[in-house]
């Protein structure tokens, strides 16, 4: 009951702030990152990426008369803290745009505040296919969704290995693995792959030999699996135990060093899609790597995506010539083919990001990019 007048006050306050932002040469970007809590490992990488990118933009002088300033706050990997941080950014810091929050779950709670106050948000790590950018026309996204990574990576793998027959295995009691399977199914259909069999398992399962034996009986050339990492490790180990030496393509659940920790040598030859091609020789990526090397920082995908988020905001300010909230959003609408460490980046009509995903393979116990 007491919330409604407060929110309308927030809106009024933010509308006022747009007027004053014009005259300022300092443009603030708020970043709500998970610096504590379960997602803290991601937040730490994002913080480095954002600070480095802001410094780089200011140093390059690409934004004439505008100086970017990053305001970084901890969302503690929770919805509650995420909301509090967003309110602070919108009303107290009067930021021109917000990067984050780290988790999709937090974004579903915090983003509507920014949408209500007409503050552009750039998600740099939210990968949930639904419920992020469809919050409203001020919510934009740099990170690719599962639905974007899997088809691109699978196509790349087919070009390399030339398989035509696939066996598919997925967990059908989990929203994430089921969604991954739906994307895989659509991808195999689009690529006209022959699916020799589709099998399912449940999260508590430890024994997958019956499913794997049935799939291998159909003589597939590749196994396509949607599973969380605990199941994935068991599936990979047991497939190898059954004598399968061919490629295994996994969904985003495979994207964890735990896979190698639990499956060991059996994980060799497992392929997973990823948003960032770390070893790309393209100039923007090399510049990014050089910047990180100068900081003695080992960047991961989250770092590169956070950097790209700042670059997208800077480009939007450059395109519209001003650093206000509406201008940043107007700039996003004009943004096309921006060179970034992730590749040539554009926004889709749905405000989701678009660039080519990369493919990685487990080799010598580590994820390595497939060229």
């Amino acid at each position, binding site marked *: 009951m007491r919330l409604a007048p407060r929110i309308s006050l927030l809106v009024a306050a933010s509308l006022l702030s747009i007027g004053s932002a014009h005259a300022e040469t300092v443009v603030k970007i708020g970043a709500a990152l998970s610096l504590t809590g379960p997602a803290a490992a991601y937040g730490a990488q994002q913080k480095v990426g954002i600070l480095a990118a802001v410094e780089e933009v200011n140093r390059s002088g690409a934004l004439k008369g505008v100086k970017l300033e990053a305001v970084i706050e901890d969302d503690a990997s929770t919805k509650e803290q995420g909301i509090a941080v967003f309110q602070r950014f919108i009303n107290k810091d009067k930021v021109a745009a917000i990067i984050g929050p780290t988790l999709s779950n937090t974004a579903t709670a915090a983003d509507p505040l920014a949408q209500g106050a007409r503050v552009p948000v750039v998600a740099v790590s939210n990968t949930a296919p639904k419920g992020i950018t469809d919050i409203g026309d001020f919510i934009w996204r740099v990170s690719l969704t599962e639905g974007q990574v899997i088809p691109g990576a699978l196509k790349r793998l087919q070009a390399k290995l030339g398989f035509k027959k696939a066996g598919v295995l997925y967990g*059908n009691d989990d929203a994430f693995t089921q969604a991954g399977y739906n994307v895989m199914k659509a991808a195999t259909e689009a690529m006209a792959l022959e699916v020799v069999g589709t*099998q*399912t*398992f*449940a999260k*508590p*399962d*430890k*024994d997958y*030999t*019956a*499913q794997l*034996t*049935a799939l291998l*009986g159909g003589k597939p050339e590749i196994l396509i699996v949607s599973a969380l990492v*605990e199941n994935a*490790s*068991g599936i990979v*180990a*047991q497939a190898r*135990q*059954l*004598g399968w*030496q061919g490629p295994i393509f996994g969904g985003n659940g495979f994207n964890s060093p735990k896979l190698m920790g*639990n499956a*060991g*040598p059996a994980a060799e030859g497992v392929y997973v899609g990823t948003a960032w091609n770390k070893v790309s020789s393209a100039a923007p990526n090399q510049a990014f790597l050089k910047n990180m090397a100068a900081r003695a920082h080992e960047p991961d995908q989250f770092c590169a995506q956070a950097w790209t988020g700042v670059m997208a905001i800077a480009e939007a300010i450059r395109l519209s010539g001003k650093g206000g909230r509406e201008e940043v959003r107007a700039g996003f609408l004009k943004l096309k083919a921006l060179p970034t460490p992730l590749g040539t980046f554009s926004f889709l009509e749905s405000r989701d990001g678009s660039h080519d995903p990369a493919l990685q393979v487990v080799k010598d116990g580590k994820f390595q990019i497939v060229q």
Partner: protein
Amino acid sequence: MGQQVINGLFLGSIYALFALGYTLVFGVLDILNLAHAAVFMVATFVAVALVGHGVHILLALPAAVLFAGLLGLVLERVAFRPLRARTDSNIAGLISSLAAATIIEAVVLEIWGPNITRFPFGTLPEGPTNQLRLLGGTVSRLQLTIIAVAGLLVLALTWLVQRTRLGREVRAVAESPRAARVLGVDVDRAIAAAFFISSALGGAGGVLYGLAFNSISPDMGRGVELKGLAVIILGGMGSMPGAVLAGFALGLTEVFVVANLGGSWRDVISFAGLFLFLVLRPRGLLGAAVTREA
């Protein structure tokens, strides 16, 4: 086909090993020891810890099995014996075994955490060189070893119960504790022995399960517990040969349902089959007459 038979036998041998100990205590005391799954789990963690400290698995396995047996003695002393004189000791025992299971799980959670762990690499020889072709399928030495160990334990237990003095005492107590006591059998000792053997078997099942699937967590016993319950009902409550037979039957059924109908149908068909079987033959595969002997 051949491969699926091997998969089914393998899964079945684990169910059988788990259910044997389960049914032994049931046969003697007429109570379900719901802490059996916790013993199964804790023995696996003990073996992992030992191997992690450089102990060879061939020593770690018997050590973990011994630990499980001793834990069984403790359980009997703490959770069951104090309740035995009561008239409602069956239900009370069921509840106190559930409490014991919860405590054991909590302790393991506290020590080792909730994450899934595994035996260190190289605990057992792995890789293609340790695989054999059999029945048109591939079987690893590990799987063969597990099936063989399970078979050996079944034979050893049968011999123990049928041929030794201890076995006769246990069977006498199962028949009638009062009559056994009149005949000079130390009833408490016989029951403690049954618990020791039961828990040791459960522990062996756990370590082999952990080696086979390398997915060890504090809740790993739960899935097996329900299957074990189904197996001892199917085999005829308290019947040991019945439990073994039913263990293999359930393992094979599950594998063929998964392969032919899909994973979602596995438990549906298995438990619907169990239900149907019990309607047609309420005493289970080898129940009734054999029950009181076990």
